Structures are given as C-alpha cells and as structure tokens.
C-alpha cells in the first residue's frame, strides 16, 4: 500500500453531484464509481444517468433510499447506463418514465464486495480505483473541514446510512497532538459526497483511517468494468 493515493489527480473523478430533495446517495455513489472505473480502464470521461438508476430500479422509489448493490444490479439488468445528458437528473422518481435506452455510454461486467478490512480496502483502492462505501453520516450535517475521528461510542459503526465514493487516502500531522507536544501522524480517507460543492471540502470530506470510523469498512463495494483476468495494471497518483 503506498503512503498516499488521490484519484482526483488522475482526472477520472466526475464533478460533485447534488442530490437535492432525493435520498439517492446510493445511486450517485454507484454512478461515481462506474464513471471512475470507466475513466481508468478506457481513459474516457463519461457521465452516466443517475435518473435511469432511479426510474428503472427494481426496488421502487429510489428517492426514499436504497443500496449501492441495487444500482449495480439495475446496470447489469439494463446492460449499461445512458448518459446524464440524454437522461438528466430530476431529483424525483417516476417508474413509468423508465426508458431503457439503446444508447449506453458505460456498462459493467460485475460487482464485488471487498473484505471489511481497511488495509485491504486501501490496497484495492490504490491498485484498482475508487470504490463505494456506506458510513454512519452522524458527523456530516455539521462538518466543515478536516479529518473526523470517532470511537464506536461517538459514531456507531453498525448504523451505516449514507453511501459515498472513496477516492484516496493520506496522512496529516495531528494538530491536537502537536499542541500537546507529541506530534503524531493521522492517517485519513478522502471521500466524495453528493451534497454539492458548497458542502465540506469542496464537496469532499475526510475520515480517520484505521479505526473503522463511522463504519467505513462495513460495505466496501465496487463495480468492475473489465474481466479480472484481462485487467490492466493501474497506479493511483500519490
């Protein structure tokens, strides 16, 4: 595992999305994941339709929540996704609007769930690209910037309720440690949220790495856009 990794520097991460009045973080995280994986594999920037995931999902009203694997199953069942431009986001759901279009801009081979181990997650992230995770969003409503570190008592790792894209990791000097005269390194994850670019660190946030803060290791999931035996080696920008 390299000391740092930031896929934003590879220009494969799409702009920050905004859910507005729709609880569809699961669909946005899945779309972000497919776009990043597609960018890495084909060196091609695509923007896929979140609205298609919502209208054509198998679980009914996607604006009332869902799970990332539901989104991937929809992509498999529909043989891919249309573009955001052809099938734009409307922040509401109408199953009758589902149009499984012929013109697909991206598709996936399958999807996998990684082990709930932060070291393995970091290794996969560095060598395969961004993945989705589902966390307890307790601190995010009031979050502005910096690395949030919690204990299971302050952010329950079992109560995960928000899906986002994991795009990198690194380490920073702990300010609190420095104040106490014992400077220590704080490893962190970099995560892409879907609440607009005015929230957090330009739409991103950071959580402590190595303590399963807010349950980050509970459901690490990613789509695969190519067959494992035909995979090209990739390297995350430091």
């Amino acid at each position, binding site marked *: 595992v390299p000391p740092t990794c930031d896929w934003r520097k590879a220009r494969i991460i799409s702009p920050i999305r905004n859910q507005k009045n729709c609880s569809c*973080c699961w669909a946005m995280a899945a779309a972000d994941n497919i776009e990043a994986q597609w960018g890495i594999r084909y060196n091609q920037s695509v923007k896929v339709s979140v609205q298609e995931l919502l209208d054509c999902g198998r679980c009914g009203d996607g604006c009332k929540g*869902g799970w990332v694997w539901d989104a991937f199953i929809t992509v498999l069942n529909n043989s891919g996704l249309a573009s955001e431009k052809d099938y734009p986001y409307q922040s509401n759901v109408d199953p009758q609007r589902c149009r499984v279009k012929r013109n697909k801009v991206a598709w996936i081979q399958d*999807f996998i769930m990684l082990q709930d181990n932060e070291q393995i997650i970091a290794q996969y992230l560095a060598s395969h690209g961004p993945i989705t995770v589902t966390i307890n*969003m307790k601190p995010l409503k009031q*979050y502005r910037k*910096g690395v*949030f*570190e919690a204990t299971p008592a302050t952010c329950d790792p079992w109560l995960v309720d928000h899906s986002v894209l994991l795009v990198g990791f690194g380490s920073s000097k702990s300010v609190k440690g420095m104040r106490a005269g014992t400077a220590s390194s704080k490893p962190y994850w970099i995560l892409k949220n879907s609440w607009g670019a005015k929230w957090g660190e330009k739409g991103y946030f950071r959580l402590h790495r190595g303590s399963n803060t807010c349950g980050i290791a509970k459901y690490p999931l990613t789509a695969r856009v190519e*067959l494992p035996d035909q995979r090209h080696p990739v390297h995350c920008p430091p």
Partner: protein
Amino acid sequence: GFLGAQDPGPRPLELKEVFALFQIQYNRSYSSPAEHARRLDIFAHNLAQAQRLQEEDLGTAEFGVTPFSDLTDEEFSQVYKQPKVPGEVPRMVRKVRSLKQGKP
C-alpha cells in the same frame, strides 16, 4: 487608565448576526417572521450540536455552519439518510460475460 484604553479587539458575532451571514451565504429567505424565528432556533440548536461534535472529535475536523444549519434533524434525515435497513446483503457475485470484449 491606560489598560482601559486598549482596543479589546473584534467582538464575537452574535447568533443573529451569524444567522444573517448564513442566510446571505446560502441564499435563504423565510416566508414569515414566525418561520424566521423558528429557523433561528433550529440554527442555534445545530450550532450547539456542532460544538458537541467538536468536543467529541479525536482528529482535526471543524464543525459549524453548513448549508444544512437551518434544518431540523428530522428534515435532514428525510432527505439525506437511507431509511432502509438491508434485508439481504448480496453474498454472491453476479457475473455477466460479454461475448466480445468491450461490448455490453
């Protein structure tokens, strides 16, 4: 005396001033004075919650005014929280093999 003449420095902003700045920054207006007062109460509650998070945090995070500072926890959860508990987490990977690589 001399000390009394010293500039005490900028005074901390009052809650109403912070709320006014929030309204400007995030382009918020409310339908009536009563609604404005209700949102101010919610704003104060959220700032207190941010302070608690600040005290709990073991890292370097900063908490405070955000685009959601005038929403109650219930309003925020309704829009942003996934209410569903997964009935069944997929244990089996579904594989779709294409006949020709690069085609859906």
